[in-house]
């Protein structure tokens, strides 16, 4: 499965504002293999959406600016291409779905026409063929009475149905990669279960890779093969889903896990919030971004950027934390590469 379809290297994005440049993404590297799901997890403002928007070329420039890095789709760099060239892969090789389907679809066009438009632009189909194909796509995403639904407008759809329609649209050109930016955040848990099931099924049948952006660790546990945890514009830990959940090696990952209730715990167990707030990205800290909130912070963390430590080669479990340095003290709460693990 080590067939890398998308490889992002050292991506940096800034936004020019009146207050100065916001360094929203600061050197992010990751890859996605064919047919797998990579989850990018983090809280609001950590740069997870900006990362995928930069890859898709949908960041408004200015004020946005890609200040460095590459994103290779099948070995070819797609970062910062002019619109004309970007349209050759955008919506064709990479599809995208958004958090809020209501505002992402055109309210003045029927659902069927919006899907046909994709087919006509990218595949040069006639309106008639495209319309027929749109109905098939709606059918594929399990929308009942697809032919009738295709003639309706977005306001006639519920949130879950709109998300299905958006998935249908993103599948129009059989993309190799589907980027899903918080696809179920606006939906109820029962509808979330339906949409996640649909995505998993389509992934199996189409052999698609999925990049799933979310803040919900339960959704990550359900969907992801690999996970990248972002904080203050950087990936602070990445690895297989089991690495992240069972061998958390960064204090922030641990903090996120302990702030959420688990159904297995007794109700008397107190949740541990992460105190403080993320750093100011106008002036990102010289050291670790999590320093001010970290319960295990050391002197070295304040002014020195931790390196990315490789903890286990087979699953590429990496952690950007000084506690993974060979000279760091042992920490009973964190997984440390140097430590002796009985399991």
């Amino acid at each position, binding site marked *: 499965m080590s067939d890398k379809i998308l490889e992002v290297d050292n991506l940096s994005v800034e936004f020019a504002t009146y207050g100065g440049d916001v360094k929203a993404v600061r050197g992010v590297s990751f890859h996605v293999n064919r047919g797998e799901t990579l989850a990018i997890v983090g*809280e*609001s403002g950590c740069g997870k959406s900006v990362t995928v928007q930069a890859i898709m070329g949908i960041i408004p420039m200015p004020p946005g600016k890609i200040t460095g890095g590459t994103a290779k789709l099948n070995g070819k760099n797609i970062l910062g291409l002019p619109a004309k060239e970007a349209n050759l892969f955008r919506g064709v090789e990479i599809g995208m779905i958004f958090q809020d389907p209501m505002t992402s679809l055109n309210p003045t066009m029927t659902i069927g026409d919006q899907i046909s438009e994709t087919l006509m632009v990218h595949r040069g189909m006639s309106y008639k063929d495209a319309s027929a194909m749109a109905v098939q796509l709606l059918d594929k995403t399990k929308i009942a009475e697809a032919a009738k639904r295709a003639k309706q407008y977005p306001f006639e759809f*519920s*949130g*879950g*149905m709109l998300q299905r329609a958006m998935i249908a649209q993103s599948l129009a050109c059989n993309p190799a990669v589907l980027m899903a930016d918080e696809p179920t955040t606006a939906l*109820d*848990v*029962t*509808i*979330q*279960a*339906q949409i*996640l*099931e649909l995505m998993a099924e389509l992934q199996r049948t189409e052999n698609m890779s999925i990049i799933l952006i979310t*803040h*919900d*660790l*339960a*959704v*990550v*546990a*359900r969907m*992801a093969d690999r996970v990248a945890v972002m904080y203050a514009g950087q990936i602070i830990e990445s690895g297989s*889903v*089991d690495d992240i*959940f*069972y061998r958390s090696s960064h204090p922030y990952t641990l*903090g*996120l*896990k302990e*702030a*959420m*209730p*688990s*159904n*297995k715990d007794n*109700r008397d167990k*107190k*949740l*541990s*919030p*992460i*105190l403080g*707030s993320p750093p100011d990205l106008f002036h990102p800290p010289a050291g670790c971004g999590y320093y001010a909130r970290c319960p295990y912070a050391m002197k070295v963390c304040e002014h020195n950027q931790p390196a990315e430590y490789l903890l286990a080669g087979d699953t590429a479990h990496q952690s950007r934390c000084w506690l993974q340095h060979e000279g760091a003290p042992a920490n009973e709460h964190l997984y440390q590469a140097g430590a002796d693990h009985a399991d």
Partner: protein
Amino acid sequence: MLIETKDLKKHFHIGRNQTLHAVDGISLQIEENEILGLVGESGSGKSTFGKALIGLHPRTAGTTTYNGELLPAKFTAADHLKYSKELQMIFQDPYSSLNPRMTVLDIVGEGLLIQGQTKRSDVKDQVALWLEKVGLNADHMSRYPHEFSGGQRQRIGIARAMIIQPRFVVCDEPISALDVSVQAQVVNLLEQLKQDLGLTLLFIAHDLSMVRYVSDRMAVMYLGSLVESGPSDDVFFNPQHPYTQLLIEANPEPDPETERNHKYVPIVGEITSPINLGPGCRFADRCPKVMSQCRSVTPKTTVVAPNHTVNCHLFE
């Protein structure tokens, strides 16, 4: 028992002889000093129920008893003044529920001034005290809402509700707009206030794991009606109503091992329209165990275990 509703209904007339049955006959009791969690999908009428309970919506039918006293169906200005001392609300959206042109001092202190029992000079001290209690700083008083993050705003909303020292607070999705790390802060704060002040809370949310964790008892709503209620762990781990079972089944757990072994059987379809509903079980259209009577007879409340009730024909 602090609050009891009997067959509470709130209908909205939406023109063309159409009636939206937002809350359609809910009977529920809330004990003193407990947290009752109210869950259900969007459109199930949770927020409308919470608002109708404390007089922010006039009732269409049914009764609400607070502390042994029957609340008026439609609150007058005098009723609002009288009951807002004891009944308060924390709103879902910390952005739209704070007036952007008022300072934090004015927002939090307004209730005290309206109640008229606090001298203007004392209001400042009270506001400072409550800002500290919810984890903000007394220096924040002269600032405006836009200067705060979502979590901080939610805490301003909490301070505004709590400064009156109410007995009962409706918390309408107080954490859904917040980041995971901040949710825990707000939940712990509510828990603490419940213990310190003997508060009673109605905690409305759609995050099942969080509701189970926060509340003593849990009530599940579907399309304006109550389907199940009972002690949180009973409802969560031993759900009886087919809807509750499917709802809890759909709730993912933040644990990859559990999720790998979890076979999902999603509920088919979506919540039906609450307009011009006839009698019968509201879940009948989507229920895998539907029987013929479900479509014509509204199920009664059946006690299945101590404090655990279900509204379903399967148990009658």
